[in-house]
């Protein structure tokens, strides 16, 4: 029997449910020269599928006051549906139709291609985004994580309908998982595989040999290795965006729990080190934090701060100090215990809505992790000591890359400061 694996999570909600369908393989699998193909395909999947053309589809979804999205993330295509429980039987088949029979009409491609290119262009208005793009390029180069899931303008212009069709044809044989969280009609569980769309998915999978997609980790687990550790992008702004980070580990790697604990210590909440040090002790930044998303390959681990030009030197110095001391001095008992409390608290915070619950379920499956991975992490947490965190930092946080975005004259000063920091 083909079709997605089904995970059910009944939760008391005010008559709503959230469904998340994850297909493995996302923008990290975009071929070079076709960067943006997964996202472009994702956007076209909501523009006509199965028995519905693009207008009928929009009428059906919006007419029920529901929300339907399909997005390419780095590691997968994620289709999200949120609707009233009573509408589930009518709307869930859309998820399968999008996978089995996306129409991919040329006029819709023209429209979505244009919108993607414009969205990429508008992203350049945000200095933070420019700094992220620079960092990604520096850390991953031409690797799968080296570009925004939206793609690259040049590649988007060159993408043909045939290329997208080939990509779409392979969707039914990708590993997939569907999680439904919330309240739904009691008959739905048994009926789901026989709903229109899902039935066709079964048939499509039976015909094809179960092709295994390229292992995700192999595509992007090796970050770019070059000697370059600095990228600067001059723009006429008041502030400088400073990003210091490294491509690290996959979610689920034995050492990643320590990194996530360091993430709590450095960047989670107002008691975090970066918040205290940069905001409270020095007042050099409003926006400061740490970014470490869950990825199948080497996930970024990035400290960031946006700061006035005249204080950019001290900001860089504070970030660098915060980075290097992770491997040179162990966390105090108090800081370690606070980080652990925050880790536990954050698990509860991330399980507030049916949408969060469903997404975590499919994410864990997509990463090849056990359903009780989070509970196991909570147990493993107890055994982690300051020495373990120090060892992991020394091993995985030894070669940070710096991305700077702001006024040219300031970037020159900071580049010199970075060179002497490394010497």
């Amino acid at each position: 029997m083909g079709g997605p694996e089904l995970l059910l999570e009944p939760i008391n909600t005010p008559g709503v449910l959230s469904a998340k369908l994850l297909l493995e393989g996302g923008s990290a699998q975009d071929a070079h020269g076709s960067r943006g193909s997964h996202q472009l395909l994702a956007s076209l999947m909501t523009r006509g599928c199965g028995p519905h053309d693009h207008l009928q589809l929009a009428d059906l979804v919006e007419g029920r006051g529901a929300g339907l999205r399909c997005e390419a993330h780095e590691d997968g295509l994620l289709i999200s549906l949120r609707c009233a429980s009573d509408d589930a039987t009518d709307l869930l088949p859309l998820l399968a139709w999008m996978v089995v029979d996306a129409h991919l009409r040329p006029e819709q491609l023209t429209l979505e291609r244009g919108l993607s290119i414009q969205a990429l262009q508008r992203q350049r208005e945000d200095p933070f985004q420019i700094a992220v793009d620079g960092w990604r390029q520096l850390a991953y180069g031409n690797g799968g994580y080296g570009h925004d899931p939206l793609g690259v303008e040049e590649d988007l212009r060159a993408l043909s309908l045939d290329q997208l069709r080939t990509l779409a044809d392979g969707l039914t044989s990708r590993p997939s998982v569907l999680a439904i969280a919330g309240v739904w009609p009691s008959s739905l569980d048994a009926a789901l595989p026989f709903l229109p769309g899902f039935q066709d998915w079964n048939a499509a999978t039976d015909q094809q040999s179960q092709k295994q997609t390229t292992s995700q980790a192999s595509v992007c687990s090796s970050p770019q290795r070059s000697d370059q550790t600095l990228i600067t992008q001059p723009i006429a702004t008041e502030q400088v965006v400073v990003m210091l980070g490294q491509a690290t580990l996959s979610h689920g790697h034995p050492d990643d729990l320590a990194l996530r604990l360091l993430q709590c210590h450095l960047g989670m909440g107002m008691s975090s080190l970066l918040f205290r040090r940069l905001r409270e002790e020095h007042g050099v930044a409003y926006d400061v934090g740490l970014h470490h998303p869950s990825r199948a390959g080497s996930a970024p681990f990035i400290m960031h701060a946006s700061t006035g030009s005249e204080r950019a030197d001290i900001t860089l110095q504070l970030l660098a100090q915060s980075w290097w001391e992770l491997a040179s001095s162990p966390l105090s008992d108090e800081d370690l215990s606070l980080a652990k409390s925050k880790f536990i608290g954050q698990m509860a915070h991330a399980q507030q809505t049916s949408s969060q619950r469903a997404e975590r379920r499919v994410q864990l499956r997509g990463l090849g992790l056990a359903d009780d991975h989070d509970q196991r992490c909570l147990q493993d947490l107890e055994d982690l000591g300051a020495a373990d965190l120090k060892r992991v930092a020394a091993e995985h946080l030894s070669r940070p890359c710096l991305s700077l975005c702001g006024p040219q004259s300031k970037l020159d000063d900071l580049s010199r400061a970075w060179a002497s920091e490394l010497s």
Partner: protein
Amino acid sequence: MELCHAVLNSLALGPLLNHWSLGNGVRCVEATMPDASLTCLDLWCRAGSSSEQHHEEGMAHFLEHMVFKGSFNLDAGVFDREIEALGGSSNAATGFDDVHFHVMIPADKAPRALDLLLDLVLEPTLAEDHFVMEREVVLEEIAQYADQPDERVLQELLARACPNHAYGRPILGWRSSLLAMDPGSMRAFHQRRYRGSNCCLSVAGKIEPDLRQSIEASALAGLPAARDTSCEPKERPLTVECGRHEIQVERLESARFLMLWPMAAAAMQTEVMGADLATTLLSEGRRSRLVAQLRETLRIADTADMDLTVLEQGSLVTLEICCQEDDLPAVEQEVKRQLDHVCDTPPEDWELKRARQLVGNALRFALESSAQVAGLAAGQTLWGRAQDLLQPLNELESWTTTRLQQELFPQLQAHRACTLIARPGAIS
């Protein structure tokens, strides 16, 4: 209409509210959510930027920052550390009308968190050295907004549309107004605004039986009751200066076409819900009028978003369209044509039904987390509208296609808007 009734019926299952008041006028509301993993404590105060006097511009927001710098009983940082060590989190936000401070916390820790929160908000130290340091952080926040071209365009629209109203100036204030402030003037603002009748405490989650008792014994009950109105800025109905402006904005990557209209104040709930339906019908989703025409059919716009901001002195409706600079004339013409058209001919039944479903479900989707529920309950209770969370949906029924055409769409005509066109380029 069957579907609509189905929606309304199941919506009745949303969290139940319980309202009461303390002797000094503090309004309290609790929402019972037995399955919530975290309890939300949300303290609201009528101390947004519109309650600032001349020379206080930006103070409501700056005070929100200063609150977290410690109280007479809690040194700076102690609150954050203790809340986060309990597995909780905290944050705050300042708006035009009000400010709120909230804590998310495991239910059994809620009494302790409540004491900490009230201590922090009601008795801030406002120490000079922290004041000077935190002002630098707020100035960085202002700089960060200034580096976002779309934020600049939106602020410019508000300034031109509401030049004589608090809603027309930035909540963050200006660099000059912040530099002119001192802890004494901030203390005066705090004493003036943080009073019993100006405050509302909202709690959502697993409610412990003795919660009410602990609130009644808390510092909240000790707040002075009366509201000193002798030197309050006069609240006045919002008016919008109609007109058409063009500006150039540096680092803008695509052109923007914006319009802003005044709309009924929050207290006029029937009109507010009508406006919600109207803006949904015009611009939410691919089948809405503006998105269908401008983006899907004519393909002259990348996005077309209409927002209803519900406010106490008069709500605001904004339309923002991103497009290529060359397409600006066509966009302007088509927007005007669409707005004229809904005035001349009532919308179709399916369009109204679609809008009702979208508005109804948006509220229903917002009732899942204790943070959202606490915020929704407090936002209404603070301003004297103690009502069920789903009460606003009852107002939807009275809006027919003809009533929308006759009463609402005429308010959203192009000539009644403040229009702003922003082109990429050097600052003009």
